[in-house]
């Protein structure tokens, strides 16, 4: 449904994303993994059309998204990494703004917004201004905003950031339910456990390049590892984490 073709993004001559290609298919949840600075968020921003690639292209149903970005975004739901919202609006008002900009009928918004906020446990704070929300509450508003218009493609960039355990569990089930309804989902996260439980397929990014693109099961089998965490360590970590941690602990106690 959504395909990235040889995406390259350079900042001041340095390639942050280098020749990344993959496809998101309807009904499939794709995990997107990589250490800090590996180019995950940059890829996500190119996929959403927020930034242009230096070279390569993103196509939606075979058409480059740049040809009709507005039309593409009608089908896209996006939960960004940072919860930047309008602080003087309430949660309900923010979702109304998003819904109206997306030209959703008023009646639908009236029913859907309180129900969605209520389901995620912030129905009581719906009228409170966002400036008083915790990070998790803002994240919940972002999740509602991304799903309000029933998109075909949903991109989650670190969706569990700030969420409590109960809501994180709800989110995992929600992602699976959305995939079951035929939506193509990209799930970018640092939390390997969630990715392992939620995603059928993972793409591992390392230094801007795709290090692996296969199903979780296939990766485990091919690399003869018991868990995704071990596969990930094998693919992207150059140093022994235990040793790095020990060095760091020694540094902490240094006087």
């Amino acid at each position, binding site marked *: 449904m959504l395909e990235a073709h040889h995406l390259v993004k350079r900042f001041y001559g340095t390639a942050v994303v280098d020749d990344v290609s993959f496809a998101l298919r309807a009904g499939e949840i794709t995990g997107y993994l990589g250490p800090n600075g590996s180019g995950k968020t940059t890829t996500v921003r190119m996929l959403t059309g927020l930034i242009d690639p230096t070279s390569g292209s993103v196509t939606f149903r075979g058409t480059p998204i740049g040809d009709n970005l507005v039309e593409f975004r009608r089908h896209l739901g996006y939960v960004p990494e940072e919860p930047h919202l309008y*602080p003087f609006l309430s949660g309900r008002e923010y979702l109304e703004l998003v819904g109206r900009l997306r030209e959703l*009928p008023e009646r639908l918004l009236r029913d859907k917004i309180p129900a969605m906020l209520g389901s995620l446990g912030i129905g009581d704070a719906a009228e409170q201004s966002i400036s*008083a929300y915790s990070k998790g509450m803002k994240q919940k508003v972002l999740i509602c905003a991304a799903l309000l218009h029933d998109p075909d493609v949903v991109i989650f960039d670190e969706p569990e950031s700030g969420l409590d355990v109960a809501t994180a569990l709800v989110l995992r089930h929600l992602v699976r339910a959305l995939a079951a309804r035929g939506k193509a989902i990209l799930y970018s996260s640092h939390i390997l456990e969630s990715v392992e439980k939620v995603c059928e397929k993972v793409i591992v990014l390392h230094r801007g390049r795709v290090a692996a693109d296969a199903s979780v099961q296939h990766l485990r089998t091919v690399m003869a590892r018991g868990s995704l965490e071990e596969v990930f360590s094998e693919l992207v970590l150059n140093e022994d984490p235990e040793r790095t941690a020990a060095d760091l602990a020694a540094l902490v106690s240094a006087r």
Partner: protein
Amino acid sequence: MAASRTALRLLRRHFLRRFLDNDLISPNADRHEVLVLLTAALAVPGLFITVVLLGSKYVIGIPTPALTSVAALDDKFLYITASMLVMALMAAVQWDALGLDERDTAILGTLPVDTRAIGRAKLTALVMFVAAFAVMLNGVPSVLFPLLTVSHFHVNIVAVVRMIVVHAAVTMGAGAYAFLTILLLRELLRVLLGPRGFGRVAALVQAVLVIALGTTLLLLPALASNVPAKWLRGGDVWHTVPPAWFLGLYEAGTGQVTLTIRGLGLRIPAGLVVPERQAVLLYDSLLPRFSELARVATIMLCATACAALVLYMWNNRRLPLPRVAQARPSGQARKRVARLIAGALVPSPVPRAGFFFTVQTLTRSAPHRISIAGACAVAIAAAILLMHGIRAIGSAAAAPARLLALQTVVTVIVLAGVRQALAIPAELRANWTFSMAWNGDMDPFVAGVKRAVIAAVVLPLLAAMASLHAYMLGARAAVEHAAVGALISLIVVEWLVRPDKLPLTCSARPPGNLKALGPIYVMLLFVVAYNVGRLEQWALRDGMVRLAMLVGGLILTYAGSRLSHLRRRLSGAGSRSPLLARVELDDLPDTPTQRLGLSEPV
């Protein structure tokens, strides 16, 4: 001990930066450029007034001692009042940054620094900021003005230095008093209302202060003229006017020098002997009041400083608790009313988004509120000047064109402020919301913005002015006048709210040479408003036919502007152009300084 001193210094620097990096300034603004602009904005008016306006008055115009000391009272009153108003206005604009807030709790709360030390550092930074502000504002006139007033007389250097010191101390002291009064008001409200109550009223108090202080500042040249005469006529009323206290302090400080100059036995030109003698009598009659007022000034300054500092330290004895989202009643009735209004005014979704987002931003966001409050201050000052000398007439037939022009002048000035506010992004980092949900057509959104401006700004403004006009002209004429005003406002909104970029989101305004065109626009406004007023005078004088003609003409003008907009839109020059289909949210603003490029090769 050394470590804590370092911590205090770092905290002080952090708080000083916060005064320049607050919400009123774009997060991308360069701090040095902001400082340069601020310094210029504060120093240049004082230099201009002293050298250009007062230079000729003292150097050429008044060669005698008593006439000089009487004439100087007006100018000293002007300097003192200007210092007070600008400092108070600065305190009102910086309202949110005056005390510790939740952001400080988030940043500093976890550091191993004593809360009292944080409060002390904030207070020190505040004092330093205020002192720097006062010096920038009053520094240049403090040196130049005393030199001007003694330019005709042989006065020794000690006396000149004394005059300079007194001028600087009094104008800065007056400014400090005004600043402390606003600070005292703020801290008093915090104590009386508690954090939640204060949060509720703070925005309103800030807007009212900006309007009141801005209006007074604009009317200052008129208020500061002929001070001694007003003083003599006003009797004890002047004891309640704070600038008069500081004028008394000024004269008490420099009185000896004034009397010494008078005692030099200078030759008075024959034509000025009588006026000089009258000036001596007038000044001497005021002398006893000066020392009395000086005492009041000293007591009030000390008392206000003590009260403000005590309350400030009390309120900032601990870091404010972060706001926690709490269950709030859903406000069903309010929502129903909003739904009804929206249903009538903006039935489709995107205009509705524009409508509500505009109302919410203009009323809740501090930079937008202050921008509109500033415009309201200018409008009220213009209205007071236009209304000067006009009494209630009771009939529209005899209404002067000046009175009828008032509505147009006020509406256009406030709408210009709204236009300015619409160019300020509500929250730059949240713009991705628009990027993701944008439908590619700016027109419906802008239509909602225009309707919000009409509903939330124009209609309340016209209603407020209609009550004044009902008193001045009678109820029927007021209604007719308001109807004409509504049509004119529609045309003005159509003309002013014509954004090239998405209102309330874009980071850069289209470039324009407002410095050169501003005065021309102001003159044009008064000329057009006066002529519209005369046209209305003609229409109101002779029954319904002429009024219908005027209303018809205005409707045609409005329809013409709408048609021209539609034509542009259909021809592709409007908001459906491919360029605007993608919202440009990341433009860099023009630099506030101009690069001359003199060193570059030709």
